[in-house]
């Protein structure tokens, strides 16, 4: 044990090892049945910014079966170098084969930054890889930036400390620096078909009998709502007091032609399904119109909706932070105000409808 104490003191914390062999920003593209997840293209958009600052190439790794077209797409969306690992065994995502491919790639190509979508698959894969390497992994980031060379550090920020604050997380002593990033936060680049990038094929060397996990079936859930693409969202929070009140929100959403959203508090309380959740651990949205009803406005919620074009907040508490985000604020009893608004909207729309009828 005395050996250990004699060891040279782990160099000054801030002094970083020589990482010059590690260069480039890698996005691991996620897909199902040949369709890419949007977050992958969004990450290429953000990855481009980081790569430009670091003056390194932006790399994309596409894994799957019959996914050569996605390798091409990755070029259209900004990747400078595209790598493709295509094999029958990779048709469905499974942790072992996919992590094997990524690990081999990382060892060989040594990117300094590796980013994944913070989806179930992205988190499953990134968690396995980071432990194997090993290296640091920051989950569910909402801001990604880099320090200019020479430090070249990834500044990975995410809501933290019970989601009341944001934290910037660094990984100084290990490479690559890894993060998962949430869908809907970053902007994809315009698709540019003139960006033709020849994909480099990556070998896959695992046989099916080495893989214990078998996907038996996939039942696609056509969610009744699509929050990320909704243009009008009527969202409710703790102030609703129960699942009953969400019916009232649904009425307003229906009248406006929108969908119902919710804060984590409402979802955790079991009043509404997770697929409605806006904010950290839910969806990030940027609709044209967002009603925040009975939502106090904790960071974990506002990170997911602050970029909405027009926000109307209704809350009993005049001091609720949500009012700092809203163009229009109503202080009062939501149980009375919401039905009144629904009524007004219905009236307006039916009059508008009549007017249209008589004009044409």
């Amino acid at each position, binding site marked *: 044990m005395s050996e250990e104490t004699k060891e040279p003191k782990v160099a000054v914390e801030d002094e970083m090892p020589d990482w010059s062999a590690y260069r480039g920003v890698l996005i691991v593209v996620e897909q199902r049945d040949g369709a890419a997840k949007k977050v992958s293209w969004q990450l290429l958009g953000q990855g481009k910014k980081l790569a430009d600052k670091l003056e390194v190439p932006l790399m994309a790794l596409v894994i799957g079966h019959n996914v050569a077209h996605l390798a091409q797409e990755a070029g259209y969306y900004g990747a400078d170098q595209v790598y493709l690992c295509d094999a029958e065994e990779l048709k469905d995502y499974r942790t072992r084969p996919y992590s094997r491919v990524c690990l081999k790639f990382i060892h060989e190509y040594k990117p300094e930054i590796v980013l994944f979508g913070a989806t179930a698959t992205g988190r499953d894969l990134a968690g396995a890889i980071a432990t194997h390497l090993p290296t640091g992994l920051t989950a569910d980031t909402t801001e990604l930036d880099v320090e200019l060379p020479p430090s070249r550090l990834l500044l990975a920020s995410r809501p933290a400390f019970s989601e009341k604050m944001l934290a910037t997380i660094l990984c100084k002593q290990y490479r690559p620096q890894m993060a998962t990033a949430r869908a809907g936060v970053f902007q994809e680049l315009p698709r540019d078909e003139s960006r033709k990038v020849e994909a480099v094929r990556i070998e896959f060397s695992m046989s099916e009998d080495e893989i214990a996990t078998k996907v038996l079936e996939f039942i696609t859930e056509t969610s009744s709502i699509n929050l990320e693409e909704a243009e009008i969202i009527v969202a409710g929070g703790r102030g609703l007091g129960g699942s009953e009140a969400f019916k009232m929100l649904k009425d307003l959403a229906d009248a406006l032609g929108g969908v119902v959203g919710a804060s984590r508090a409402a979802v955790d309380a079991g009043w509404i399904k997770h697929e409605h959740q806006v904010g950290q651990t839910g969806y990030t949205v940027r609709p044209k119109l967002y009603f925040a009803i009975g939502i106090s406005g904790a960071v974990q919620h*506002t990170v997911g909706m602050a970029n909405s074009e027009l926000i109307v907040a209704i809350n009993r508490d005049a001091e609720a932070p949500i009012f700092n985000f809203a163009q229009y604020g*109503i202080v009062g009893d939501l149980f009375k105000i919401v039905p009144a608004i629904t009524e007004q909207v219905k009236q307006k729309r039916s009059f508008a409808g009549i007017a249209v009828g008589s004009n044409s």
Partner: protein
Amino acid sequence: MSEKLHIVVCIKQVPDSREIRIDPKNNTLIRQGVPSIVNFYDLHGLEEALRIKDEQGARITVVTMGPPPAEKSLKECVSLGADDAVLVTDRGFAGADTLATSYVLGKTIEKVAETFGKVDIVFCGKQTLDGDTGQVGPGIACRLDLEQLTYVSKVRAVDKDSGKITVERHLEDGIEVVQTSMPVLVTALKELNKVRRAPLPGMLRAARFKPVVWTTADFPELDRKQIGLKGSPTIVARTWVPEIRKINTTRVEGESEQEIAQKIVETLWQTDLPERFGWKS
């Protein structure tokens, strides 16, 4: 006759995040007086273990890494029906990120296997309420070279004889039915089950129960460079309460709810929204 399944459930005692407030004066967290609870996703993992135990018999060992007061959470799990409980506690473990945590929990589960018998299933919550990363489960699976099934919403079958487990994983775009071989690590979603209440005999047993306590001294092989702060590659460089973009909020007021509703709807109708959405065309 085959031996009973041995299931390990990893839990974490966390501050109830709903109770944490920010001190507006200095933008720091007010942690005082915040109650501690068992991370509720972990309780769904425990519940699933208990269901398997009810159906086909199993031995359940609950483990946690944390400060000594985490004993309270272990006792809660015992009251619900866990057979054994292990608290891994040491100042040296403090400040661990997900990588260092998975290292210690991996070592702990190895020791649990030596002490209580070979492990077939490890349950974790899909993530913790305070860390919110979902990375420790996959980390443990990797450390122990287990198959990993994350985001599980239903356990369809556990077949001790064939060594197979079949589950449903709830992903963003649907439900994936997967089968794999044990030993396996499963991370639990809330949808997995409904957590039971502790029965009276369980509560009585828990009251007298003393968990096994292991410190670094109980792990002579432990690599000190891989634990606690030192073993944690990620560093929190800065925390802040995000700048609130100051918006000139227009307060919509009125004598009655009807008047307020009328005003806000009028306002909306003066924007380009009605046109864009065909509210009137």
